[in-house]
């Protein structure tokens, strides 16, 4: 799209140009919204809009038209019905922790924030479910049910802040998904408000929604298919204990082979985390976790269960590590030691941010390709004169190379972005994908053709259009701006709910 918008001083990613006819009606739109929302539900002063201009992908920012903060599903429905009738884009937002720019607005869009919908509505321990509003934070669910011996499994690093609504939008993962799966595997149902304000329920407290798996489609839909206002999530009995072991290796290849052998031996730890030498040095300097500094690669392997089970699994895992000439083995003897082993890993992003600016890649590769991709990642960054630190979920092949650069140097920033693109291309060529858990957002939008053919993308866009024919929901994201289907004219208000039903569904 030739008229896509790029702001001075920003990187190469363009946004859809704001529609002047919407900008011109701003005052009237604000008045209309004010009338339909409860007090505290509308933000429109420029100063107050500032916090909403970007998310955790801070390289790009746009002030939205206004921010609406509905208090319930009915208000979400009213806002969407209004925006739909008026042709105003809407960008849903949870806590704004997206690393891929999934919640960055645009000038002619309303941000629909879920922060006022943050109640846990119902905890049903016998059915092992919790029904929550979409603005509830990920961690608060586990905090609520923890005393009863349960937890909610997906645990993205931002779990203290990020919301279930945002997790559903991005199908978020976390360190422990090797055993328990990601959001889509732990989500039983949602209340979804469609773009025209229609409210539908997908799934519920039972397993497997009837009909087409629209729940599976909405999870990871990046806020393009509707706005989730409530969710029913699965709770799991919390294991008796969890214990990590730390391994240091002289080569990344040995560490990678060790991971593959642990999996092949039929052991599924809850987590296998990998750090390379630069990452170890950065984390150790920050966290003082006692990581060995004389190794090329470090693994943290965590098992859980009763004491005797953990003993048995750890013994088997240590035996495998020794076959791969492990140099350092540190088993945790106490909760304090276990926490220390994790402390370094968990502070990786923060610690890296103290030594340099960085961009975090999120490609996933097949386990057999790990060492190859690690080596090539190093070579690519070196060719751009940049440093890279690798910290990632090795058990599922989800890599997180952190490319270090100086954000005040535009030339270096451009190089970092170019190196990142090369690395993602590499992940796809190795049989993997562009993003394992952070989502496409705007960050990887223009790289989608690395992974998908025109026909693949056209099919995804056609399915997207079945939910949102005018492309009003989070419109600048996920799909490259060029090659999008022509927008259909705006339908009559509420016409979608009455669309003629083909006989297969009549």
């Amino acid at each position, binding site marked *: 799209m030739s008229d896509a918008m790029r702001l001075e001083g920003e990187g190469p990613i363009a946004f859809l140009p704001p529609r002047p006819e919407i900008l011109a009606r701003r005052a009237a739109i604000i008045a209309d919204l004010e009338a339909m929302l409860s007090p505290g539900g509308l933000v429109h002063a420029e100063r107050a809009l500032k916090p909403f201009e970007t998310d955790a992908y801070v390289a790009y920012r746009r002030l939205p038209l206004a921010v609406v903060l509905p208090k319930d599903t009915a208000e979400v429905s009213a806002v969407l019905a209004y925006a739909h009738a008026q042709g105003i884009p809407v960008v849903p937002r949870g806590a704004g922790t997206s690393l891929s720019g999934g919640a960055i607005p645009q000038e002619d869009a309303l941000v629909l924030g879920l922060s006022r919908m943050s109640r846990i509505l119902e905890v*049903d*321990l*016998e059915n092992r479910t919790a029904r929550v509003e979409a603005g509830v934070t990920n961690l608060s669910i586990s905090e609520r049910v923890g005393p*009863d*011996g349960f937890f909610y499994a997906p645990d993205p690093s931002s779990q203290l802040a990020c919301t279930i609504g945002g997790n559903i939008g991005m*199908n978020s993962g976390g360190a422990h*998904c090797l055993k328990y*799966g990601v959001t*889509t*595997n732990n989500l039983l149902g949602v209340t979804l408000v*469609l773009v025209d304000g229609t409210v539908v*329920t997908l799934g*519920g*407290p*039972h*397993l*497997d*929604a*009837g009909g*087409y*798996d*629209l*729940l599976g*489609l909405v999870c990871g*839909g990046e806020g393009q298919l509707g706005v989730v206002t409530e969710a029913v999530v699965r709770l799991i*009995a919390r*294991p008796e204990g969890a214990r990590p072991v730390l391994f240091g290796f002289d080569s990344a290849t040995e560490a990678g082979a060790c991971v*593959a052998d642990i999996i092949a*031996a*039929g*052991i599924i730890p809850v987590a296998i985390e990998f750090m390379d030498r630069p990452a170890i040095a950065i984390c150790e300097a920050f966290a003082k976790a006692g990581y060995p500094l004389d190794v090329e690669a470090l693994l943290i392997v965590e098992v859980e*269960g*009763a004491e*005797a*089970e953990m003993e*048995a*699994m750890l013994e088997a895992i240590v035996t495998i590590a020794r076959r791969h000439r492990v140099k350092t083995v540190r088993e945790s003897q106490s909760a304090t030691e276990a926490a220390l082993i994790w402390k370094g890993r968990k502070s990786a992003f923060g610690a890296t941010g103290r030594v340099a600016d960085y961009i975090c890649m999120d490609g*996933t590769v097949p386990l*057999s390709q790990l060492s190859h991709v690690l080596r090539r990642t190093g070579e690519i960054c070196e060719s751009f004169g940049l440093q890279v630190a690798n910290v990632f979920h090795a058990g599922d092949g*989800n890599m997180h190379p952190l490319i270090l650069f100086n954000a005040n140097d535009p030339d270096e920033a451009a190089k970092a972005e170019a190196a990142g693109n090369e690395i993602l291309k590499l992940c796809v060529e190795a*049989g993997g*994908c*562009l993003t*394992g858990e*952070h989502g*496409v957002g705007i960050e990887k939008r223009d790289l*989608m053709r690395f*992974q998908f053919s025109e*026909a693949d*993308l056209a*099919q995804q866009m*056609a399915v997207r259009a*079945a939910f949102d024919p005018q492309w009003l929901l989070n419109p600048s994201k996920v799909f490259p701006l060029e090659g999008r289907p022509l927008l259909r004219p705006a339908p009559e208000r509420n016409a979608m*709910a009455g*669309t003629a*039903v*083909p*006989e*297969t*569904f009549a």
Partner: protein
Amino acid sequence: MSLPRHCPETEMQAAELVRAASAARAPLAIEGGGTRRGFGRAGAVSAVVSTAALSGISRYAPGEMVMTARAGTPLAEIEAALDGQRQMLAFEPADHRPVMATTGTPTIGGVFAANVSGPRRLVAGAARDSLLGVRFINGAGEAIKAGGQVMKNVTGLDLVKLMAGSFGTLGLLTEVTFRLLPRPERAETLVLSGLDDAAASSSMAAAMALPVEVSGAAHLPESVRGRFLSGALPEGAATVLRLEGLAASVVLRADKLAAALSPRAPITRLGPEESAVLWREIRDIKPYADGTQKPLWRVSVAPMAGAPLLEALRMEAGVDAFFDWQGGLIFLRMEAEPEAELLRGLIRRFGGGHATLLRASAAARAVTPAFEPQPPALAALSARVKASLDPHGLFNPGRMT
């Protein structure tokens, strides 16, 4: 019944077939092994496309716990390959041939197209949760790839989930890539005897709340108990709980679970061999593989809703039943009519869920929606999604009505 039958051998041939059908607006029946042909309705079609010749394992990386196979690959071939590496499909797909009185060879594409999941679904997810990637031909005759071969992948819309459980109505699957799990070293089953349905539900909930990793929780009322394990289960209704994993760990967990539940009912234990047979029989709905056409429902509700729903249904209709998935999955064999409206009304009353008619006489099937009818807004959305993949309604018309 002498419809033309096509067995494309390559994805390209499959695409050509669909393009030709699309140009002629000639609807197609999509078929794997045909062992689940009885699900849903068979609408009028011009030809049958079978995936039988799209067969073979394309890639198996045991160290990655991932396999790619062409859609028509027999399930047996896949399971044999997995056996050799001590791996398995976590979701325990049922063999529907005995209960539906069909013959043929179940295929891996059919398993995913019908989202067939067995007892372990309760903790390990459904077939759709194990499906990582697909290739399929859409209604325009284009070959489409979705997902991939890695476990964590959020790149673009998850059309993979959409294809799972769509019964061939959205596209012709040509290849599937799926996640595997190591086969547990040992399995044991605890049998609690003599509990009524409500007490069994509470006991299963109590077991699931303990940190012992129960991997199967079923309740077999007295009326069906004798039809499992050739009648070898102890007297009285049997509430069965499975534990799997490293041998030493299974023994420890079984002791712990038995200690916690012993005040509730007398407990016996089944070793690995009997346990394997029992859970296969539960998976394959053995009590109702009875050679009859009596209507058979598969109902999914919240676990604690199962027992009260059945009790209410019994007040109004003759029915025999047993429970899986901690009480939330009920197999109901009706004595006479399907009683779809009665059943679906009760499902709504007890908190929602869905009922699928697995089997019934041709006359009953003709007038009973086999899949749970959806509210109008959701039905309209599903229809738009269908149209976005299959604009001319070529694939399995009427199947999911």
